[in-house]
């Protein structure tokens, strides 16, 4: 379990302190996952038709090691699309918790940072144990990127990737075709190494030199300046004509929220026996509907603007982190072809 109290802001991230470097081969990695699977449920990337998705794995043979990124982000294993919170039985109420121990392999740095970005939201004020139980009971083995996953990715600009600089228990960084560097980021991560020592090899001096090269390699095609964007957003809120223009092709589908590794807005709904939490989307008209049927963000452009301001301004001002990790999914999968990166760059340039 990684230290949750230290969220992954640049300031508090446990920065590259001197750690012993280990290596592991692909074969040994599968053996490691197989042995971890005995006491934990294993979540890993698997093939689903032609897509790669995260799922619970029974046989490590199904684990896909070579992939760019999953279509859906990793957040659904921490805030499921539908999650039962309370159970009603004959007038009595019981809270539902899962104390399942899990190992999550293959989470990419952008999705990892997405979790770190939403941590303070669930922590501030009254801590949400339904979320943090899952965070605490899950050992995260992150997988750093060395190849571009999507031409719309801008994880370098969002300071999330391609190699994570914290928030993981273990991070694997590909070294050649058959090996990974292993970085430990927490006590739980160090325990995995010490309990499975025979599977790991010590990294040599030349390997460590290679590692620095890999970490410094730039792979993104797109660049943005999120801090500049934040500054420029300050005077633009009431420019309604602009927000109307850029949101013109928005289909109000919510795909940008659902595929975002850091969007966490949810709604509580009852059925006869349970109260459950399910994803919501700030792009939906009913998102702000109030009892008197008053809808403060009735017009589409106000919802579109809300999403950008929450991601790039308010969350950063409140928690010190942008609520965007540069995965590029919202640009790639937007059916209205809204060019979020161009919007960020254009506003920044003005």
């Amino acid at each position, binding site marked *: 379990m990684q230290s949750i109290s230290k969220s992954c802001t640049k300031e508090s991230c446990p920065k590259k302190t001197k750690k012993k470097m280990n290596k592991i081969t692909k074969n040994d990695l599968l053996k490691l996952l197989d042995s971890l699977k005995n006491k934990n449920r294993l979540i890993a990337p698997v093939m689903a038709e032609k897509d790669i998705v995260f799922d619970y794995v029974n046989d490590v043979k199904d684990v896909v090691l070579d992939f760019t990124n999953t279509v859906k982000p990793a957040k659904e294993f921490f805030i499921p699309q539908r999650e039962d*919170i*309370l159970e*009603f039985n004959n*007038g009595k*109420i*019981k*809270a539902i*918790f899962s104390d399942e121990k899990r190992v999550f392999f293959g989470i990419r740095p952008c999705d990892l940072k997405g979790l770190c970005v939403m941590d303070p939201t669930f922590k501030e004020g*009254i*801590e*949400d*144990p*339904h979320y943090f*139980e899952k965070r605490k009971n899950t050992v995260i083995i992150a997988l750093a990127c060395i190849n571009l996953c999507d031409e719309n990715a801008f994880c370098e600009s969002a300071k999330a990737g391609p190699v994570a600089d914290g928030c993981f228990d273990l991070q694997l960084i590909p070294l050649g075709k058959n090996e990974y560097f292993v970085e430990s980021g927490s006590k739980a991560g160090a325990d995995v190494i010490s309990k499975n020592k025979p599977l790991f090899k010590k990294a040599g001096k030349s390997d460590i030199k290679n590692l620095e090269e890999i970490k410094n390699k730039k792979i993104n095609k797109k660049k943005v300046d999120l801090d500049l964007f934040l500054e420029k957003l300050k005077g633009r809120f009431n420019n309604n004509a602009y927000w109307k223009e850029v949101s013109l092709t928005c289909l109000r589908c919510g795909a940008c929220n659902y595929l975002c590794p850091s969007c966490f807005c949810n709604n*509580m*709904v*009852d*059925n*006869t*026996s349970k*109260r459950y939490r399910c994803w919501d989307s700030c792009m939906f008209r009913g998102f702000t509907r*109030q*009892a*008197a*049927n*008053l809808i403060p963000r009735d017009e589409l452009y106000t919802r579109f603007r809300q999403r950008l301001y929450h991601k790039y301004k308010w969350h950063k001002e409140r928690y010190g982190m942008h609520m965007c990790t540069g995965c590029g999914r919202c640009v790639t999968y937007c059916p209205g072809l809204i060019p979020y990166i161009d919007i960020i760059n254009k506003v920044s340039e003005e």
Partner: protein
Amino acid sequence: MKSPYLPEIVRIKKIKQETEDIKTFMLDYKPVFKPGQFFEIGINGIGEAPFTAASASKENFQTSIKRTGKLTEAIHKLKAGSKLTIRGPYGNSFPVERIKGKNMLFIGGGIGLPPLHSLIRTVLENRDKYGKITVFYGARDEAQIVSREELKNIWPRMKNFRVVVCVDFKKNKGEWPHNVGLVTGIMEKELKPIHKKQKHNCFCLRAANYDKGRNPKAAGAWL
């Protein structure tokens, strides 16, 4: 482990019909909270929603609920003795300490008065520590007025307590109250310049006042 979503199950002690679609519920529950804070009230299997307390801390909890959707309709069907779920308190509160010694202006519209009750009651518990109280209240028509007893009989008889009630539309001449118009408009007429120096005001308006573009600031209320 305790879930913050797990509510307490409490009994309804008393129900008062305020208007055709507003009821005040008194619960067998004495929570500690600050005026202005809200609670999540619900019925298992239907849902829960936030309601502001209309009572003071440590006394029997009261809240006024307008029948307006699925949950509030179900709550309105309950009788005294039935059970509700409640959790809280949540949210911010009025600065009770900071406003000591000051004159106070309360502006409420429609169902927006009960949320102010909590502060008014708290102030009345320590009456000598606060200055003059003025309450402006507006409702659609006379039938929609809540807290009649307080507005008509209790508060106006108190020392240093002024109540101005108005309605948007008046059906019969001569009935109470005597002011016709939106609460923001009546304030413009009624407020004397000296009041404008007041520093601490609390208001809670219903949607219609905003809808009609009556910005309370422009109409003479200032925060």
